[in-house]
Each structure stands twice: as C-alpha cells, then as structure tokens.
C-alpha cells in the first residue's frame, strides 16, 4: 500500500489562506489502511476546521487516484473554495485533472510503499524500481531494505543483525541470509549480481504503462 503522513495542521491552515468553504476529501484505499487519510481522518480534520471557523465538510471516495471515482465530485468541488485531499500524491494530481479551477491542497505527505508490520507500524518494502528481483534474495528486497541498496552481500557494518545506518532496523542482508538458509538455497548468494539497470526506475524519467489490448 501507499503510506502517507498527515501534514502538520498549521501547514494545512497556511495553505488554505483566505478560503472559507473547504471540502476535506478522504480516500478509501491505501491511506485509509494506514490511518491517515480515510473517512475517519477526513471527518476529524473537517471538525477541526469548523472549530477554527471554516465552513468545512468531508467526503471520502473509494479511490481518489481514478477519474472514474472522482468524476462524480465535479459539482461538489465547484461549491467550495478549496479542497484538501487526504489521498497520496497520485490522488491529488488526479483531482487537478478534473480542471475544476479550484484550489486543491495536499493534506498528506506521501512517504513510501510499504506494509503494516504490526499494529500502528508501517515499513517501506518496495521502491518500484521496475525490475523486480526479490526472488533471488529470499523475498527481502535489498534495494529497499538495505540502507545502501547493496546487491552482492552486506556492507560489513551491521551489528547483532541490525543496520549500521539505522540501528533500529534489521540488516536486510541478515534477513536475506536467514531466509535463504531456511530455504536451503544459500548457494544463490554465490551468484554475482550485475550492476542494476536503473533505467526502469524513476531515474529513467516519467514512467508509463500501456496495454494495447485494453485500449478503446
């Protein structure tokens, strides 16, 4: 899922400037699960804004990142001065594509693609590099989870299985070793990984995917 964190309230208030009628728009997918931008959080923010004197209301759509779900909101958006989107950056941009002429502000900072590891804790798991090789590392992505994104073994700085860069995190290479040992595939570690082709990642520019068979 995409994980986001709510922006500080003063930052949100500063963005609103002289807007009076505000719609707080939640998203019912990823940010609902990470408890930052769902219906509950949208209602809370709208409530705070009303206490602050704004004419605020909240609404949550199933997915803000798809025009199909936000197209029906056109009229609603026209009735307010500004929209605070509690979706990830994709959702905010999708709202702008409605060309409403209204101010749309991000209420969240989109932080990473990850998973809940335990109640109240989310961790990054994927960089979206565009060339997945997780299977070679026993299901632990060294690009994301190793602080140095090393592909050919640990850096030598880990201590007691913890990362030297962020000592509260597990060393990805310790996890990889432990998992491959369990799978009885430690021999995989003897294969030298070639330098990664980063052109498939965001470093190769803006990415796009097309399914010819799905085009209308």
């Amino acid at each position: 899922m995409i994980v986001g964190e709510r922006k500080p309230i003063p930052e949100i208030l500063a963005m609103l400037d002289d807007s009076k009628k505000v719609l707080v728009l939640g998203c019912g997918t990823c940010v609902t699960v990470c408890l930052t931008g769902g219906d509950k959080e949208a209602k809370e923010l709208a409530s705070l804004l009303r206490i602050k004197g704004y004419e605020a209301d909240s609404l949550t759509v199933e997915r803000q990142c798809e025009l199909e779900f936000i197209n029906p909101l056109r009229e609603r958006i026209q009735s307010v001065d500004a929209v605070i989107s509690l979706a990830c950056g994709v959702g905010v941009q999708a709202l702008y594509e409605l060309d409403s002429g209204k101010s749309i502000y991000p209420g969240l900072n989109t932080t990473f693609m990850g998973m809940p590891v335990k109640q109240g804790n989310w961790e990054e798991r994927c960089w979206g590099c565009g060339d997945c090789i997780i299977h070679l590392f026993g299901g632990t992505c060294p690009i994301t989870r190793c602080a140095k994104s090393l592909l050919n073994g640990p850096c030598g700085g880990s201590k007691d299985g913890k990362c030297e860069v962020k000592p509260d995190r597990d060393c990805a290479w310790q996890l990889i070793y432990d998992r491959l040992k369990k799978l009885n595939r430690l021999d995989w570690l003897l294969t030298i990984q070639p330098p990664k082709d980063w052109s498939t990642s965001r470093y190769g520019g803006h990415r796009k995917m097309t399914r010819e068979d799905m085009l209308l």
Partner: protein
Amino acid sequence: MKILVIACDKSGYPAMIKYTTENTTDHELTSILKVPCLGSVKESDILEALEGECDRVLLVGCPIDSCFHQDGSRFAQRRVNRINHLLEEADISKRVVISFVTAEKISEIKRTLDLISGTPAQEELKP
C-alpha cells in the same frame, strides 16, 4: 466553563449522578451522555461535540485496570491524548479530559473538575 460529559454506564454514569446529586460545581454541565463503554467513543464524536458551545468534553469511565470491557478506558485515554494533540496543533483552546472513577469513589470527578478550572485540587472527598 461549559462541559459536556460522556460517561460509561458501568462506572462513569452512576458516579456522575451521585456526584451531581451530592455536590455543586461552578461549571455548567451541558449534558451527561451515557455510553456503553468509553472505548466506543470515537475521536470524531468528541471533536463534533467540541464544535458546539462546550469548552471541554469530560469522559468519565472505569479505572484503566478494571474497565468492565477490559480495554475501553485504555483506548479512550489514547484517543483523548491524540485529540488534545490535534487541538493543540491547531491552536484551539478547547480540550478533552478523562476521569477514571468507580461509583463508590467519586472524588476523582471533583479533582478533574478542579483541574479544568485551573485551581489546585482540593482535598479528596471521602466516599
């Protein structure tokens, strides 16, 4: 100060009724709402209550370690802390307060109301 009270029906509500029957307060208790458990009170409910004219929302429920529903008071305590952080962050002076009581020991209510007034807590009332 105008205070809306939300009390659980196991400990908080009987204690509030006993307290208001036996004591007077300088505060205006706008209403005393009975809920099954403080753990059932959502953040958005409390914020909605604060949108009105009340200055404080007072939650009254079972002691944390002996909540009738086990974790209700603990969850409520966390939510109160979170809401107060939100209110502080938004520079709003309204606050939520929580008080843990039993029907037999209601002195905690007085202590909480004294705290709300900003006056030092007086000697606890003997149950």
